[in-house]
């Protein structure tokens, strides 16, 4: 695919050493002029297996994450199309799906247990495998070393492990789709006791076990990746790249990784306790349960405890999903509006604010668990405060666009779409953050509509913006813009047509996770609306294949990219068009200025890359910059 350029010879003269690894170590251990480098596998003729499969190059690993994520996204989207078929045409025959679904179609109807499994797997796949691993795994890996000016991640080996743990986790989750009792079916939040009792429903059996094993592997992958991202940002920034000169993408990835390091271990704890409850007879989450008239021996457990542990991860998780998208959107908006991002420091501050607040709002998912109303109002208060940093970001994005010299590239359209979806979805967050309103809306389609807009679709738009924008750096070719426009409009209109009506049926009380609603008079009036949502969802999903085609076609046949196709200021565009392992063939450029010198008054060009010193830009320097130039 890439990598046709001659490789820099990176064989290290001094082997980096450290405590955790096990490589034999020369005596020159201590810091200072020690190179940090794990590239000793890098020889001129590498076996393809080491170059493309077990690669330690962050760019190859990023592509592995991206393509695995895309496969998962297709699967997750297919599952949603299946349950939208059921919701849109509850009386319709699904006989024609028998060749694909086999025994899950009974007498022309979708098996209700399988419907639950579809919903569960759709959520799990989209939240974890696509929007966590596929989004931050791809772009943190790809952009952090390139934008901070490093040859690779702090530990290429750990980075490779991170992908392969994700791969293993994917294999386990994927296999669970094919077992006899079906995949996990307790919802992506896997609340006990439904998930804790293997005999409860078919999906609580082997499918649930595999779900837990898969998630444990996934958490290991996230930790290995996150630790690497943070270390790279802290230690491997090039000369001059102070924290206040970092592109906002890097700030977003950095804080996302910190959130992951602090919140995923808590999910691991919860999963471990759940595994013990399921398989080792403990009662952490189980108490006073009767199944078919039989009392279980489990005593003293608390299912609400699981919810606390789960949402302590679960809430930061939604910011793990959205913050990388926010960072990339900031970058794409500034580049294509040819304007500095409005309020650079406020953008960093709001990211930090969101990160801190994300840890203290988890119980707003649990207003109906019978919690103390006082506690509920504390969480409500903290939740509503998140509107402040979110509002700062939105206004800054809008102010960046204001009177910009906007170039409507496909990436830019998706970035603007992101802002639109984030506003639409964010506003309903204010409604749901209110305990009193949430108690009414809880578990209705209003919630589904809210989080699909604000975190699901928005994060997808960030992902698309990122792929269209950085595709030239990834593959040395451009994606087709026309197909990009078609893809954008289908998706953008599709998303609104799908989720706007959901708010409406949600307010009317239409419940989530119901296989059939035809038995309820109150909901039957929404039959047409449901059909409409289903048609829109399936068309929007099919529209994604335009993107898939564009992506793979452009890898091989796309127009060749130039060095800096978007006239962007950040460091990744100073590398060769197809950078080899090590990123820069010569020295790593030093950085002199912030990443948003677009349309600077007095400058001859409308962008000044970060590695251009002030001594070369006398015409546009501000007085204090002029001082630095001399």
């Amino acid at each position: 695919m890439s990598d046709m350029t001659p490789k820099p010879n990176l064989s290290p003269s001094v082997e980096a050493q450290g405590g955790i690894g096990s490589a034999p170590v020369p005596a020159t251990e201590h810091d200072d002029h020690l190179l940090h480098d794990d590239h000793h596998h890098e020889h001129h003729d590498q076996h393809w297996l080491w170059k493309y499969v077990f690669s330690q190059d962050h760019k190859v690993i990023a592509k592995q994450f991206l393509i695995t994520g895309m496969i998962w996204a297709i699967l997750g989207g297919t599952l949603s199309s299946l349950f939208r078929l059921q919701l849109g045409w509850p009386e319709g025959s699904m006989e024609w799906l028998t060749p694909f679904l086999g025994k899950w179609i009974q007498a022309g109807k979708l098996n209700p247990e399988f419907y639950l499994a579809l919903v569960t797997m759709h959520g799990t796949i989209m939240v974890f495998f696509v929007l966590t691993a596929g989004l931050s795994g791809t772009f943190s890996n790809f952009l952090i070393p390139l934008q901070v000016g490093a040859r690779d991640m702090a530990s290429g080996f750990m980075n490779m492990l991170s992908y392969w743990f994700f791969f293993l986790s994917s294999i386990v989750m994927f296999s669970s789709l094919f077992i006899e009792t079906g995949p996990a079916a307790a919802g992506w939040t896997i609340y006990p006791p439904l998930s804790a009792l293997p005999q409860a429903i078919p999906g609580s059996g082997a499918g649930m076990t595999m779900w837990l094993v898969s998630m444990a592997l996934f958490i290991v992958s996230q930790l290995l990746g996150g630790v690497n991202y943070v270390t790279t940002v802290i230690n491997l920034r090039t000369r001059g790249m102070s924290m206040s000169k970092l592109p906002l993408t890097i700030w977003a990835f950095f804080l996302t990784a910190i959130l992951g390091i602090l919140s995923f271990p808590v999910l691991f704890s919860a999963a471990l306790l759940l595994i013990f409850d399921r398989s080792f007879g403990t009662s952490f989450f189980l108490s006073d349960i009767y199944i078919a008239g039989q009392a279980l021996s489990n005593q003293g457990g608390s299912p609400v405890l699981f919810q606390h542990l789960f949402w302590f991860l679960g809430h930061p998780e939604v910011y793990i999903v959205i913050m990388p998208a926010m960072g990339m959107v900031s970058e794409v908006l500034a580049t294509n509006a040819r304007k500095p991002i409005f309020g650079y420091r406020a953008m960093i501050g709001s990211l930090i604010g969101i990160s801190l607040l994300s840890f203290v709002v988890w119980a707003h998912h649990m207003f109906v668990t019978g919690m103390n109303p006082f506690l509920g109002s504390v969480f409500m208060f903290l939740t509503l405060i998140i509107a402040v940093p979110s509002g700062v970001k939105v206004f800054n994005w809008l102010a960046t666009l204001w009177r910009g010299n906007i170039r409507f590239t496909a990436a830019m359209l998706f970035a603007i779409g992101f802002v639109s979806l984030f506003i639409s979805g964010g506003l309903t967050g204010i409604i749901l953050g209110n305990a009193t309103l949430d108690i009414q809306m809880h578990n209705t389609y209003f919630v589904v509509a809210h989080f699909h807009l604000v975190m699901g679709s928005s994060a997808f738009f960030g992902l698309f913006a990122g792929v269209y924008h950085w595709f030239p750096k990834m593959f040395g070719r451009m994606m087709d813009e026309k197909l990009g426009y078609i893809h954008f409009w289908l998706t953008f209109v599709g998303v609104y047509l799908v989720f706007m009506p959901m708010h409406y049926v949600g307010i009317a009380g239409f419940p989530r996770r119901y296989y059939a609603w035809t038995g309820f008079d109150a909901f039957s009036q929404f039959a047409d609306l449901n059909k409409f949502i289903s048609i829109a969802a399936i068309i929007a999903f099919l529209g994604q294949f335009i993107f898939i085609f564009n992506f793979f076609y452009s890898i091989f046949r796309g127009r060749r990219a130039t060095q800096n196709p978007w006239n962007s200021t950040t460091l990744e565009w100073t590398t060769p068009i197809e950078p080899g392992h090590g990123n820069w063939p010569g020295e790593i450029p030093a950085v002199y200025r912030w990443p948003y010198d677009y349309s600077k008054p007095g400058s001859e060009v409308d962008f000044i890359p970060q590695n251009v010193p002030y001594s070369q830009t006398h015409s546009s320097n501000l007085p204090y910059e002029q001082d630095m130039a001399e």
Partner: protein
Amino acid sequence: MNPQPELLSEKEVGLGWHPKRVVLILLIFSIVMMFAAFTSGYIVRRDEGNWREFDLPVSLLINSVLIALSSASMQWAYASARKDEIGRLKTGLGITLALGLAFLVGQYMSFGDLVAGNTYFGGADANPSGSFVYVLMGVHAFHLITGLVFVAVVLRRALNYQVHSRAMLSIGNATLYWHFLGGLWLYLYLFLLLNH
């Protein structure tokens, strides 16, 4: 083209720590979060009632002393490495390994004492209070095994004269991790002592 190897001196200073030190500290934070989840879950669960009190075996106190001693010997090994006293370094690491193993055996025997006191991990007679004790001890023991592997690796390096006053990174990291594991156990012991 003869690219320069990436020198840390070409980099921004950052926190001034070696990347591997940063990795270790981040991993320690993730372990802290895991135990924070367990112990806060313990408190939340206890406050909901239906909580069986249990006796902590005395053997845990002996184990705590063992692990505190192992931290001391690790520190001694570290100080010896600084002063290039390689013989003492090896002895210190050896003692640390032995005490660490003794701690693990001691924890295993404490499981027996817990069972003898009718505190069970699972089954019909178990209560989450007891199960939590096993989980806390077990997960800590798992991390202690990783710490032992780490110390063993450093010992092997020390035997090859690869650890000395100008090569302190690996033993520095191992010492940090070992102290963390010791401190973590003392926290858990104190926590159980106050909250059983």
